[in-house]
């Protein structure tokens, strides 16, 4: 069962023989049954016939063609002679002229395309500049970061410097009481020398070795 609306949509295709065979058979069967669709199809065909007839009648008469052909012939001759002249002129002497023309040649580009190209170029330049500035800033701020940073370096060994003082035996006996025994041998430490130590002094004492501490951080060397 065919729908009249869909049939009418396909009438132009039927008139131009653009329908697949099966669809064409169904459509023609429907046209046999449906008078209104049949009239519609006849009207489409008649309209196309009128157009064809009128377009043909609009064509020029025989008198026109001889003039047309001679004008066409003249133009072709002109083109072929100018083509020949161009070929003759294209010698090494005219190479310089051709190069000059090439150097000063202009290319037609649509405005939207040109605008897009300019925008892309601008963005690329800005991006490149921004990226370079970022790298410079990193380099500039790199050294202060290493300066302000506090690094704790563990001291592996604390060196205790001692000085032994020898006291007279007689004097030792005299001070035999246990409370005073501890004063017999005075032990001087670098930062813990006792105040009540008798006459022991570290003035003039110098350690035999000097401690040299080297801290290596990155590419910078701090020597203390």
């Amino acid at each position: 069962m065919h729908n009249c609306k869909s049939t009418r949509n396909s009438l132009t295709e039927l008139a131009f023989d653009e329908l697949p065979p099966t669809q064409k058979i169904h459509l023609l069967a429907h046209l046999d049954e449906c008078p209104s669709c049949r009239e519609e199809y006849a009207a489409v065909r008649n309209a196309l016939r009128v157009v064809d007839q009128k377009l043909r009648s609009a064509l020029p008469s025989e008198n026109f063609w001889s003039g047309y052909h001679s004008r066409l012939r003249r133009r072709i001759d002109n083109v072929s002679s100018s083509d020949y002249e161009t070929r003759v002129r294209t010698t090494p002497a005219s190479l310089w002229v051709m190069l000059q023309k090439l150097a000063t040649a202009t290319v037609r580009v649509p405005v939207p395309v040109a605008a897009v190209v300019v925008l892309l170029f601008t963005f690329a330049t800005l991006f490149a500049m921004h990226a370079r500035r970022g790298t410079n800033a990193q380099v500039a701020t790199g050294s202060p970061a290493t300066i302000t940073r506090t690094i704790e370096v563990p001291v592996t060994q604390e060196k205790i410097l001692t000085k032994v003082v020898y006291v007279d035996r007689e004097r030792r006996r005299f001070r035999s009481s246990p409370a005073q025994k501890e004063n017999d041998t005075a032990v001087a430490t670098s930062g813990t020398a006792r105040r009540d130590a008798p006459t022991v002094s570290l003035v003039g004492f110098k350690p035999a070795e000097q401690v040299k501490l080297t801290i290596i951080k990155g590419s910078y060397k701090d020597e203390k």
Partner: protein
Amino acid sequence: MNSEEDLIRRAQAGDTDAFCLLAEAHERRVFALALHYCRDREDAEDLSQEVWLKAYAALSSFRSESTFYTWLRKIMINCFLNHRRTRSLKMREEITDVLDAESVNEESLGSVSALERNVQNHLVVGRVMQVLSEVTPQQRLIFLLKHQEGMTYEEIAKAVGCSAGAVKKSVSRTVTKLRQCLGVNHESTSYVSCGASEYPIGS
């Protein structure tokens, strides 16, 4: 013997006469399409001759993979699509100028009925041209390629650069517009047949 292949070979070798003979064989068809597309005889002459000059320039690229006319039609379609009308507005009266004035004079002098027939013919042609001027250049070209050239929807779609569905819609719209404007009904049977198929209607 001047076969088309022979003429093409000679024209490719630079024989202008051979090319002119080739042009003579197809020039009416090209001009007719240009005339229906431009709806002005001078424009049509310029456009059709431009097609021939382009064909002459590109003749060395013809490889005999298709017929000469198929190859020429591709050039013609490209020329038509790139065609920009130099005269922006055409008056309605000018549209009817496509009719050959000589044919009117010869026949109209015969009798009053012949004169009436010619006047009516002018009016109908004017209406057809009017409808063709109201659709877009691409729609007009698609319709002419279908109606005058008998190309398939697929071929037109490939040549114009759109889908076959779009071609189908375009042709259908133009036909509907022509029908409405011409006021043709199913009883109008006094017209010569065109490229449209002749399927029997009813029994």
